[in-house]
């Protein structure tokens, strides 16, 4: 039935959106892609996504939103391989804890370093982001190349979407994940991640990504995202 085919409502430039997009691609699910501007607060948009958030998946007449909730939904609605969460309850909790860590202890600082306009605030965000990344790396299991070791999971997608555009943070703020011992695993990991077909499909050209982040870096973006990021929160 047509309604069994999901629709993804997302913005081309959104790393949160890429999380849902990549998840669908990884699963080989057929879906309709709808380019969306979530800042266009039209009544039609609220009918699709009741809180106005993107990404949003419409499937069988229902809406699922919040990028992390989308990833879990995709894994459960299409339980084929690759599983985005493993079988064992503790391993599942582990993936969730570290996806949550990415959302609370890394992403806000990625936005923070771009959105803050003073050097002091930017440097603090950069250090906080590195601390969060260091903790994530330390939590990675042995056997590589993924967060859980041999198996790809939602924990890789959670950070790997933002990780694939760190060149943008370097461009505007000189942010670099160092090459020293503590961070070596990060570089191996992100190289493997971005080489996946799904990442290659969603990642826009470098120039477009840089242009998209420019208003935030220059302090002229008026979006909710910019406001939230200034307060240290991200939607």
């Amino acid at each position, binding site marked *: 039935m047509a309604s069994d085919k999901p629709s993804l409502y997302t913005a081309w430039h959104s790393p949160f959106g890429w999380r849902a997009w990549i998840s669908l691609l990884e699963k080989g699910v057929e879906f309709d892609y709808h380019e969306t501007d979530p800042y266009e607060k039209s009544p039609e948009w609220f009918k699709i996504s009741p809180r106005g958030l993107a990404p949003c998946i419409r499937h069988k007449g*229902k809406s*699922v939103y919040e990028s992390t909730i989308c990833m879990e939904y995709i894994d459960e609605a299409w339980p084929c391989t690759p599983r985005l969460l493993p079988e064992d309850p*503790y391993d599942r909790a582990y993936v969730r804890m570290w996806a949550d860590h990415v959302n609370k202890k890394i992403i806000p600082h990625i936005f923070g370093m771009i959105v803050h306009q003073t050097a002091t605030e930017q440097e603090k965000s950069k250090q906080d982001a590195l601390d969060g990344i260091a903790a994530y790396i330390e939590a990675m299991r042995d056997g590589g190349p993924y967060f859980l070791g041999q198996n790809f999971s939602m924990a890789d997608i959670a950070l790997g979407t933002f990780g694939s555009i760190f060149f943008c943070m370097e461009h505007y703020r000189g942010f670099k994940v160092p090459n020293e011992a503590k961070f070596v695993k990060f570089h191996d990991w992100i190289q493997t991640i971005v080489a996946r077909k799904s990442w290659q499909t969603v990642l826009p050209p470098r120039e477009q990504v840089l242009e998209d982040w420019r208003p935030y870096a220059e302090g002229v973006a008026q979006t909710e995202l910019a406001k939230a990021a200034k307060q240290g929160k991200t939607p």
Partner: protein
Amino acid sequence: MADSKPQAYISWFCPFAQRAWLALLEKGIDFEYKEVNPYDESERVKYLKINPLGLVPAIVHQGHVVYESAICIEYIDEQWPETPVLPNDPYRRAYERIWSDHISKKIVPQYYAMLLKQSHEDRETARKALLEQLVVLTDAMDKEGPYFRGSAFGMVDMMLAPFVARFPVLKHYRGFQVPTEDRYARFNRWWAAVKERKSMEKSTPEDERLVDVYKGYAAGNPTMS
């Protein structure tokens, strides 16, 4: 199936810890209750060895630590599958997670804002937002109820109940009450059923003790003595 007894690290006053505690009680799991006071420096240092984040709740089981209240609930539900707190269907599970997220992002911060903010104006803003977001949540509830998804007490109920159980603190310090008018009828019906549950009676401290333990917060100081 679990082959050893889990330990639940809980602070008796903490609403986040109560969320996990409710899940354990509702599922009838045999667990070891471990009281933690994360505001006491020496206890905190010892506890950091168990949970490096130092927060409650934490579930320690088979040599592993699980933290973050929502993640604890899901772990408990998956490790001990009898009497599920989440439904089976993927969309209904996503719906529980969406509304749990709403509670954490839109309701809980207003509860703390009402206590911690020192200006009357800020507290009023928080009060209005708290009531508004409660209605947004109850509009998403099953019409019959009494619980969030109907006749089964589940995750969304557990994510909200501990904070509503602490509304007497807001009443004492801020004169806050959820009105009885129609707009709040679904909320009041939900709460009337929730507060009668054995798990709630067992895990909710008396109003007087809560009012006392939150006096620091009410003075704008987020600590407990």
